[in-house]
C-alpha cells in the first residue's frame, strides 16, 4: 500500500514537472495531451488543486495588465453580434422562402405536366377526328363525282322502277353504266308506312345478297343511292321493321330492278 502510494506520488510529481498542465491552461495542448491532462485532473486531487490554483493565478496575473477599453468598443461588439444574429434569422427567412418557392415550383410543375398530358390526349383525339373527316369528305366527293359521271354519260341506261301490288305508288329510277361499272338508284316516291316499318334496299350481285341500308323518307328524294355494280344484278326494295333487317323478307318485296 505504502509502495503503491509512493509510485502514485512519483507519477504526479513527474506529471507536474512537465509543462503539460500549463499548456492545458493556455489551451495549447494536442488532443492526446488534453485527454491525458483531463485524466490526471479527474484522478488526482493534487493535480486538480494545482490546476485550480493555476487558473486563479492566471486571472490575477491577467488582471494586473488590464487596460481601460476605448470608448465605443462595447457598442461595436454588440452591433457585430446583433448583426450576426439577424443575418442568422435572415438566413432562416431565406430558407423558408426558398422551401416555399421550391414547393410552389413542384406543384406548378405537376400542374403543367398534367395539363400537357391532357392536351396531348386531346390533340390525338382531334387529329383522329380530322382524319375521319378527311376520309368522309374524300368518300363523299368521290360519290358525287361518280354520280356526275353516271348521270352525264351517254352510255348510262335509265331504268324506271315501279312498285308491285304492295306499294303501287312506289316510283324509282335506276341509272346503270356498264362502261364505268357504276349504278345508282333514285327513289322519288314511297307510299307511307306504319311507324314500325321501313323500306330497305338490297342488291343480289354474283349470287350474294348485299344489304344497302334503309331508304330515307321522300324528303331527300333527290338523293342518289349507290348500287353495287355486277353483271345481271338484281336490286330489291322490301318492307322491314323500323331500323332495318339483316336479311331481306322475301314475301315483303315491293319492287325489283334487274340491271
Amino acid at each position, binding site marked *: 500500500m505504502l509502495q503503491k502510494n509512493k509510485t502514485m506520488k512519483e507519477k504526479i510529481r513527474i506529471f507536474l514537472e512537465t509543462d503539460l498542465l500549463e499548456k492545458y491552461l493556455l489551451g495549447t495542448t494536442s488532443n492526446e495531451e488534453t485527454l491525458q491532462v483531463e485524466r490526471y485532473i479527474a484522478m488526482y486531487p493534487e493535480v486538480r488543486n494545482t490546476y485550480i490554483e493555476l487558473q486563479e493565478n492566471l*486571472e*490575477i*496575473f491577467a488582471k*494586473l495588465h488590464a487596460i481601460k477599453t476605448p470608448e465605443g*468598443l462595447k457598442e461595436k461588439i454588440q452591433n457585430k453580434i446583433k448583426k450576426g444574429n439577424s443575418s442568422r434569422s435572415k438566413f432562416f427567412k431565406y430558407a423558408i422562402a426558398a422551401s416555399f418557392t421550391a414547393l410552389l415550383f413542384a406543384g406548378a410543375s405537376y400542374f403543367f405536366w398534367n395539363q400537357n398530358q391532357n392536351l396531348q390526349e386531346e390533340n390525338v383525339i382531334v387529329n383522329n377526328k380530322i382524319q375521319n373527316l378527311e376520309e368522309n369528305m374524300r368518300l363523299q366527293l368521290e360519290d358525287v363525282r361518280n354520280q356526275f359521271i353516271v348521270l352525264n354519260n351517254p352510255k348510262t341506261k335509265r331504268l324506271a322502277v315501279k312498285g308491285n301490288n304492295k306499294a303501287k305508288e312506289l316510283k324509282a329510277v335506276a341509272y346503270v353504266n356498264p362502261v364505268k361499272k357504276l349504278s345508282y338508284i333514285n327513289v322519288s316516291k314511297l307510299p307511307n308506312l306504319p311507324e314500325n316499318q321501313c323500306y330497305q334496299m338490297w342488291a343480289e350481285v354474283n349470287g350474294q345478297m348485299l344489304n344497302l341500308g334503309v331508304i330515307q323518307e321522300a324528303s331527300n328524294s333527290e338523293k342518289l343511292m349507290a348500287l353495287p355494280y355486277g353483271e345481271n344484278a338484281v336490286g330489291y326494295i322490301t318492307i322491314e321493321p323500323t331500323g332495318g333487317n339483316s336479311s331481306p323478307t322475301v314475301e315483303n318485296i315491293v319492287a325489283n330492278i334487274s340491271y
Partner: protein
Amino acid sequence: MSILLENHIIELLQERNDKAISLLYEHYGDTLYGVAFKVVRDEDLAQDVVQESFVKIWKKSDSYDPTKAKLFTWLFRITRNTAIDKLRSASNKSDKEIQMDVSDVYKLGTEGVIPDLIDVQDNLEKIDSKYQIVLDALFFQGMTQQEASEELDIPLGTIKSRLKIGLRELKKIYGSTMVFAYLLNFIIN
C-alpha cells in the same frame, strides 16, 4: 469575480442571451483588452482582437464546459489565441519577425491603465522581474516552458521553479486584495 455572477453569466451564455456579452465586457473587457495588447503591442490591433474574441465567445458559447475550466480561463484562451493569430497574420503582412522584448513588461506604464489598478501596477513592479519575465513569456508570448528556456537562456528547471514561485508571490501580494476588490465591486454594482 464572484461565483454567483460567474454562474449567472454562464447561464445567460447557455440560453444565448446577448446580455451575457454585455456583462462579460463589463467585468472582463479591460483585462482581455490588456491581454490582447500585451500580445500584439498595438492599440488598433488589440481592439480588433477584443472585437473578434467577443464574437468568437458568443458563437462558441455552447462549447464552454464549466466543469473543465473557469470562465476566465476559457475567455483568456480565446483572446490569447486570437491575438497570437492576429500577430502572425500582421507580421506576415509586414514580413516582420516577432521578437520577444523583455523591456516591454515595464513599457506598458501608467497611460491607459485604469486608476483602480495603478497600485496593482505598482505592486506588479514589486515582483522580482526575473519572475515577471517568465510569467510574461509563458502567458502572453505564446511560449512553452521549453521555448521560454531557450529564448531567455534560462535552464528549464529554473523556468519551472520561477513560474511556481512567481505565481505564489502574486498570490501573496494580491490574493487578499483581489478578493476584497471583487467583493466590493459586487456590492457596489
